[in-house]
């Protein structure tokens, strides 16, 4: 009886709250419920990421062995190792860095140190935003049209690196520019007043101070290049090659493309090798991500201005 009336009054309270949601009790309840909902949503974002990483790690670890990391694929890729794919991704990342790092940092220096805010600068910024938004497969088409066919580079590491470097450019430019801009104006003023030229100021003061930020941007850009598949589909990637590439004009295997091939194109592929390949790729990409974030947070902690 007592319990019944208790519940009744509870229900009555609820109805009152719904009828008049402006009482402070009702608002507190709504807020609690809302915050709970938002944290649930955040969990929905984060938990699958961790689950994916942990799952691939657990499933992939048994495949990792010296032979897997340093051997060539055998028996139609169903056995052996993935060395050519690892080496290929390494070369591609390196090749991308060769083109995109100087160009990206140069563009960032221009935007932060030289450009005045006019129509052209605004156009450059719109172009950068656009480059960042172009679908990766469209980069592949462009690379095929310009580098592979028009410049006649063939499907080669060179063509693939050039394509990937244009794709990574916006990431590098925008993070490097941010890093350069965060160097206080007084550093520039003092350096110039001591008789340094503008370029000396940039090279010896500003670039040095902004280095950690720039490095973070470069690594994040290259991380994207290392993990992408669509831009290299028609510009460099080879299904299977029995040897390592010997010149920048050779085609090569690459980790992301290899994972695509063995998970869709080869029937009867042992699952262990698939997970092993996925793990190596994740290790590459997340390793770079970790290095970048570590550099960034260390630099932030050490910064004195």
């Amino acid at each position, binding site marked *: 009886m007592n319990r019944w009336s208790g519940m009744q009054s509870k229900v009555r309270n609820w109805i009152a709250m719904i009828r008049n949601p402006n009482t402070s009790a009702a608002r507190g309840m709504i807020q609690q419920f809302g915050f709970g909902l938002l944290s649930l949503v955040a969990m929905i*974002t984060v938990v699958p990421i961790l689950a994916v990483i942990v799952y691939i790690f657990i499933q992939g670890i048994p495949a990792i062995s010296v032979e897997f990391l340093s051997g060539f694929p055998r028996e139609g890729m169903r056995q052996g190792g993935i060395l050519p794919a690892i080496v290929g991704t390494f070369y591609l990342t390196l090749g991308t860095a060769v083109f995109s790092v100087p160009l990206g940092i140069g563009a960032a220096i*221009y935007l932060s140190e030289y450009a005045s805010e006019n129509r052209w600068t605004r156009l450059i910024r719109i172009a950068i935003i656009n480059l960042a938004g172009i679908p990766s497969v469209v980069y592949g088409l462009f690379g095929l049209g310009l580098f592979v066919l028009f410049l006649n580079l063939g499907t080669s590491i060179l063509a693939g690196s050039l394509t990937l470097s244009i794709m990574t450019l916006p990431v590098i430019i925008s993070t490097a520019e941010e890093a350069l801009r965060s160097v206080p104006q007084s550093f520039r003023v003092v350096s110039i007043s001591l008789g340094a030229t503008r370029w000396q100021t940039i090279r010896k003061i500003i670039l040095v101070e902004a280095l950690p930020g720039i490095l973070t941007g470069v690594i994040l850009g290259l991380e994207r290049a290392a993990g992408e598949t669509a831009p290299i589909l028609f510009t460099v990637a080879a299904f299977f090659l029995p040897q390592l590439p010997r010149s920048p004009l050779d085609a090569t295997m690459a980790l992301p493309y290899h994972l695509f091939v063995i998970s869709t194109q080869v029937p009867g592929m042992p699952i262990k090798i698939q997970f092993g390949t996925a793990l190596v790729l994740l290790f590459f990409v997340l390793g770079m991500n970790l290095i970048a974030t570590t550099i960034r947070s260390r630099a932030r902690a050490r910064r004195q201005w």
Partner: protein
Amino acid sequence: MKINLNWSEFLITRLIKVSGYSAIIFVGLIFVFLVMEGFPALLEVPLGKLIGTRWYPIEEHFGILPLVGGSLIVTIGAAMFAIPIGIGTALFISEVSPRWARDILKPLVEMLGGLPSVVLGFLGILILAPFLRRFLDLPTGLTALAGSILLGGISIPTIVSVAEDALDAVPRSYRDAAIALGATRWQTIWRVTLPAARSGVLTAIMLGIGRAIGETMTVMMVTGNAPVLPIGLNALFQPVRTMTATIAAEMGEVANGSTHYHVLFFIGVVLFMISLVINVTASAVVFRIKNRSERILS
């Protein structure tokens, strides 16, 4: 010596300027090459057939509507997941969570952005598709829905980071004023902070959708690759094929300079234009916000 120094400084300044303009040059180059290879499609295939409902290149049927429809339905599906989850996560990170939680959540979300799409596609084939097939009792799990779920995951980091920036940029005084007037934090979020950040949040949604439309490997691996025109919401549970997946799947096997090759480049032009519209609109919003705040400050 002095002359020498000036000379090299002059040269370096030039080089820097050129690299500054490189972004414009590249966007131009991409456009020119896509159009150069894609435009002949308009001459070789009558427009009525190009906007047809049958994509069967072996028999010279180049109707791109099924592919456009495939991209649309997968993207709409992805938006249904990604917008509420992305904005909710951004709100949680910027308005609700304590500092330590934010320091954990932000790098994790960034990490999701860095996961290679081919890895997600691989897990999609192996885990998500069989699960959907059993759970929804479908003939195959490789459907638009599987693509939508994974694409949603791929566009969430974009939405979260842009929306979180926008929410962060709302001045503290707005929130303080709302709280001082007796609003709860929850009411402040919905009636003050979110409306104040709405153009930034809209930008986040647009960029997220742009990311979803352009994604290639994941959708190619998990949507089942059937170029049929999807009609109605039921199509979410059927295999489809997107524009991006078509290019990726077929470009490797066509002869350079053939009609099929030109049509694939034409699809590339369409994708380029879509991303151009999305990004120019988004950047216009970004510039407008900046101008408005500058006006308020001065």
